[in-house]
């Protein structure tokens, strides 16, 4: 069967009652997570993993993917109404979205964001269908040397492009990789760094670690500074005017392309495509002075790029098994929890699952549009939930998630420990994303490297004999060298991101 045949069959499966229900539940929960300030998509996806523990693998992945892109959209609502991005990618939306809300145009801003997200998501999924299968076929020709090089390249891109301080990002990567080595040696079966603690023989659980670093860590930060400047917007008038449609359509098209293309590159955080799409709109606009004062194309470009990025970033995960961001790493963890290893072999071994999940992206984007256009007022009301209830509710999910996978109270302590660590690292502004990606990629990296060296009899020269592996290893060297030689250019880019 070809890709289209598999997609059609996947669409049929995605439209089954159960899978539709999982996609719907995921969209609702994801939007809820995105709406609540202080909980980003990574934290949201992590804390909702326990809901999927006993679902079948397809349903679990469909639901978690829906949570992911639901959260990516949900962040928009807080950006527009209270000028607080629900997640980092919505920072750019605050610039014009909040100004529109102050002018009484919150409904239009949220509607165009929902429509832009829908278009970006659908087009990016079509492109994903076109790109993912051929890329996975190519990756099937990879040996362990190429896989090791690919993972090194992915990690280094995350370090180079996402980290504010490259040395700190490299150190966090090394520590994340070290953490992933706790437990039984995957090749020889010898225990490592277990110190006689029985619970460590299985390794440090990915779920408690991400729940701690993201869920508890972000909650502790939110507990420190409670804030609310909710605008009492008239959300009954949400349909954009003809002029607003005209201004937004081009921005949505350009945002889609930028978001999808940058989603393919590991390490490009969601904020970069939203920022680039926004800057492009401002540069080509005949009235750039309107930006920052409530220009609807600013909201449209950023939100479209955000959702196109979310779907585009699934390509490296599904086709190559390389997560491009912490949220995608959490999703990869969910695949592994369900006994699946994302990557080219998944396309070969479980094509019906992969294509059902891809088809569910179309279904999820439609559900998200249906949920977000008429129900925007309802979502806005959630912003009034008192912190005492929000915080306690999230912690209940974190405790269940940490405990539920292995029925181990030890994992609850691990979650709490990493929660405190995540809070401290955030306070110091240490980059956490590289450690999370390293934690998930560590065992596969070690196995690939050791298999490669066993094949070569311990000689690293094998990487020189394999051109693709050599080329992949050259990518991170070039990126890191570029940043080391021109640190100011990269620092300026990131500074502008924040401003």
């Amino acid at each position: 069967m070809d890709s289209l045949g598999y997609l059609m069959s996947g669409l049929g499966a995605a439209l089954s009652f159960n899978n539709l229900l999982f996609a719907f539940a995921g969209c609702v929960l994801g939007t809820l997570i995105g709406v609540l300030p202080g909980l980003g998509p990574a934290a949201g996806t992590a804390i909702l993993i326990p809901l999927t523990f006993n679902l079948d693998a397809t349903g679990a992945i469909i639901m978690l993917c829906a949570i992911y892109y639901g959260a990516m959209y949900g962040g928009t609502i807080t950006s527009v109404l209270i000028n607080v991005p629900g997640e980092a990618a919505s920072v750019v939306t605050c610039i014009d979205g909040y100004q529109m809300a102050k002018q009484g145009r919150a409904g239009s801003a949220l509607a165009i964001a929902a429509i832009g997200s829908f278009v970006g998501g659908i087009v990016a999924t079509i492109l994903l269908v076109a790109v993912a299968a051929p890329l996975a076929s190519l990756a099937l020709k990879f040996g362990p040397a190429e896989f090791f090089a690919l993972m090194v390249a992915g990690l280094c891109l995350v370090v180079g492009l996402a980290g504010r301080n490259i040395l700190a990002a490299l150190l966090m990567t090394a520590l994340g990789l070290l953490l992933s080595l706790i437990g039984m040696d995957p090749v020889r079966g010898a225990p490592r760094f277990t110190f006689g603690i029985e619970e460590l023989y299985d390794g440090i659980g990915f779920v408690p670690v991400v729940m701690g670093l993201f869920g508890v860590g972000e909650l502790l930060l939110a507990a420190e500074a409670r804030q609310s400047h909710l605008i009492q917007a008239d959300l009954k008038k949400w349909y954009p005017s003809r002029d607003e449609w005209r201004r937004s359509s081009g921005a949505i098209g350009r945002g889609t392309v930028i978001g999808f293309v940058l989603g393919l590159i590991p390490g490009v955080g969601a904020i970069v495509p939203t920022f680039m799409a926004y800057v492009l709109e401002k540069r080509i606009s005949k009235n750039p002075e309107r930006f920052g004062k409530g220009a609807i194309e600013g909201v449209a470009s950023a939100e479209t790029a955000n959702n196109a990025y979310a779907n585009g970033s699934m390509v490296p995960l599904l086709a190559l098994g390389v997560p491009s961001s912490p949220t995608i790493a959490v999703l990869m963890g969910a695949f592994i929890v369900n006994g699946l290893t994302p990557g080219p072999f998944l396309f070969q071994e479980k094509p019906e699952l992969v294509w059902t999940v891809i088809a569910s992206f179309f279904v999820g984007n439609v559900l998200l549009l249906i949920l977000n256009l008429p129900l925007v007022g309802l979502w806005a009301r959630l912003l009034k939930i008192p912190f005492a209830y929000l915080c306690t509710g999230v912690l209940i999910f974190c405790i269940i998630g940490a405990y539920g996978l292995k029925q181990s109270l030890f994992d609850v302590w691990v979650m709490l420990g990493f929660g405190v660590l995540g809070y401290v690292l955030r306070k110091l502004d240490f980059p956490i994303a590289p450690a999370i990606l390293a934690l998930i990629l560590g065992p596969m990296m070690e196995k690939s490297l050791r298999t490669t060296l066993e094949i070569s009899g311990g000689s690293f020269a094998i990487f020189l004999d394999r051109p693709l592996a050599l080329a992949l290893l050259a990518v991170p060297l070039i990126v890191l060298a570029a940043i080391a030689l021109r640190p100011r250019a990269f620092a300026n880019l990131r500074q502008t991101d924040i401003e």
Partner: protein
Amino acid sequence: MSRNARRGWLVATATMMAICLFAIWQSLLLSLTDRLGPGPGFFSFWLSLLGMLFAGLLIFDVWRKPVVESDETLFPRGESAFRVLIIIGAVAGAALLMGWLGFELAMLVFIAGLTFALGERRWYAIGLFAIAGSFGVYYVFTRWLDVLLPPGPWAA
């Protein structure tokens, strides 16, 4: 970088350096290579060595950065600090209690205590939320979602 931030970075990086040093020692206790190729300590040894190098460079980098005099503190004080500490304490308490009392009773205490500590004063709201979050959540997760949670002492 403020003086407090610099101190925080130096302490954190030095701690990470110590972890890498410890990992080097532990890796050396495992074999680095054997007749089949790289041994169990191979990857961790080289990683820890790289980690040490990065930590050393980072300490040097932070050390030479100019310090900006500022009153800004790194960690919160007063009410904010109380909220952070109470959350950490509540989760630790819940983890301890779950082993003895089971999920439902431990969560009942956890939810009632934490919502009160975070500012809720309406007893009926606290009670309803605590019952829903403990007995209700237990029922949903164990019966509907098949997730095993620690049962109460009466379950045996």
